[in-house]
């Protein structure tokens, strides 16, 4: 579904990605794990059109990826950004309406809104409230709900569990499973490697702008080097 070939991205004099290749097949959950600064967010921002690649090609559903963020959304890639970036000045309802910005089929939009509200009952309760008044966990749900409203087929998620209490982290990963069941393909970037590997089908390990390992999520999780670098701290922290 998504094919990235030999992607190089540089900004501010830093070569953030040095020849990254990856693919995501329809229906998969693929995760990219790596340390802070490995280039994970850079990769998602390049796919979403915010950063111009210095070299490399990207294609989605067999066609070259569009060149502007809004065109990429139109083509069916939605992105739940790091830090959630909900519109704090708009109501929950209007945040979700923004998700449906490009869609004209009112019936389908209403059906999707229904679906988002049943997935996140908290959002339904707070639909008239300004998004800035939501808690961190609720804002994460809103960011996910808003992305679902774009009706994209591929959902990019950037650190959805970042800064959330452990109980909410659990919830977020359950929701990722639910979203997957809705028929969405998911590309998940996470520092919480343990959790990410447990929901994903396949995984890539990104280190200093290069893919150093790839394979089935269970195999990557079993890899001793990965266990040492990414899962050690996690198991010590109690997962």
């Amino acid at each position, binding site marked *: 579904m998504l094919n990235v070939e030999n992607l190089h991205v540089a900004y501010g004099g830093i070569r953030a990605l040095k020849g990254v290749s990856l693919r995501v097949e329809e229906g998969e959950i693929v995760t990219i794990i790596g340390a802070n600064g490995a280039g994970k967010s850079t990769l998602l921002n390049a796919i979403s059109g915010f950063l111009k690649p210095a070299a490399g090609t990207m294609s989605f559903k067999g066609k070259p990826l569009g060149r502007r963020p809004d065109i990429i*959304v139109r083509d069916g890639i939605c992105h739940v950004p790091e830090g959630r970036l909900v519109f704090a000045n708009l109501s929950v309802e209007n945040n979700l309406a923004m998700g449906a910005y490009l869609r004209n089929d009112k019936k389908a939009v209403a059906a999707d809104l229904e679906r988002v509200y049943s997935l996140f009952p908290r959002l339904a309760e707070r639909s008239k409230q300004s998004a800035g008044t939501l808690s961190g966990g609720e804002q994460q749900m809103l960011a996910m709900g808003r992305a679902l409203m774009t009706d994209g087929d591929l959902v990019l998620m950037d650190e959805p569990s970042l800064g959330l209490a452990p109980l909410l982290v659990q919830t977020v990963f359950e929701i990722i499973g639910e979203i997957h069941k809705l028929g969405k393909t998911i590309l998940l970037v996470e520092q919480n490697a343990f959790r990410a590997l447990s929901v994903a089908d396949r995984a890539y390990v990104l280190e200093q702008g290069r893919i150093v390992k790839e394979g089935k999520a269970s195999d990557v999780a079993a890899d001793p080097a990965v266990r040492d670098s990414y899962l050690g701290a996690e198991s010590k922290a109690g997962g």
Partner: protein
Amino acid sequence: MAQFLQQMVNGLSIGSVYALMAVGYSLVYSIMNFSNFAHGGVIMFGAYFGFFAMTQLKLPFPAAFAVAFVGTAVLAVVIERIAYKPLRERNAPFLYFIISAMGASIFLENIIIATIGPTFRTYPDVFGRTSISLGSVAIGRLDLIMFVISAVCLAGLVLFIEKTKIGRAIQASAYNMKAAALMGVNTDRVVMIVFALGGMLAGIAGVFFGMKYTVYPQIGNITTKSFVAAVFGGLGSLPGAVLGSVLLGIIETLVAGYLSSQFRDLIAFVILIGVLVFRPTGIMGKTTEDKA
């Protein structure tokens, strides 16, 4: 009491035109986080467009008015494309935008001086000099028309921003450009629409100032007042810009009426300094950072 009411009426009228300019500042500030100092140049062009449409093209006032605000909407968009878009594409720091805006402002003023000269020009008298009496208060026809048209434009702008899909996209972009783009909003187009709206209102304000005073290349300097008003109300907030403008208009006319008209301009800057020192967010502003 009658004099006080009279001053209030005059203040409302001038304040409403300040508001037309101030919302232009605030709209651009809310989206791009910098103060568009080329706005004064656009207002000045509005005054000239209207003036020449009436005197050279012999257009009736409504048509000349339309020529002015369509002309300035286009002008504002062209300025954005030339002076700011290249900076946006490079993610330049906001200081570069300000420098570019000042350059554009100097260019606009001097292109007028170089081509049509620095002379003061007077608009033809359209509305007559007689005033309308409401009890003890007399309202100049021009003042009344200024107030009504400004109020209608501001109400229209609020409706546009609150009720339309593009308006919601503008609000979303004002909060966060990247997040808006992730919803499929063409943020480049949002910027264009914001400049067109700001330019349109600037053109209307320009015609009014030209009619109330005279037309000259430095007439755009009057935007310092609307800048003060926008900061007073809270940069980036449209209701704040309107409130700040109306208050400034009233305060100025009261000062001119009861103290001396020489203190009128002084008070604007006293307010500016006072706001920046004691309440940098203004009455309803969104942030205290980088307000330049």
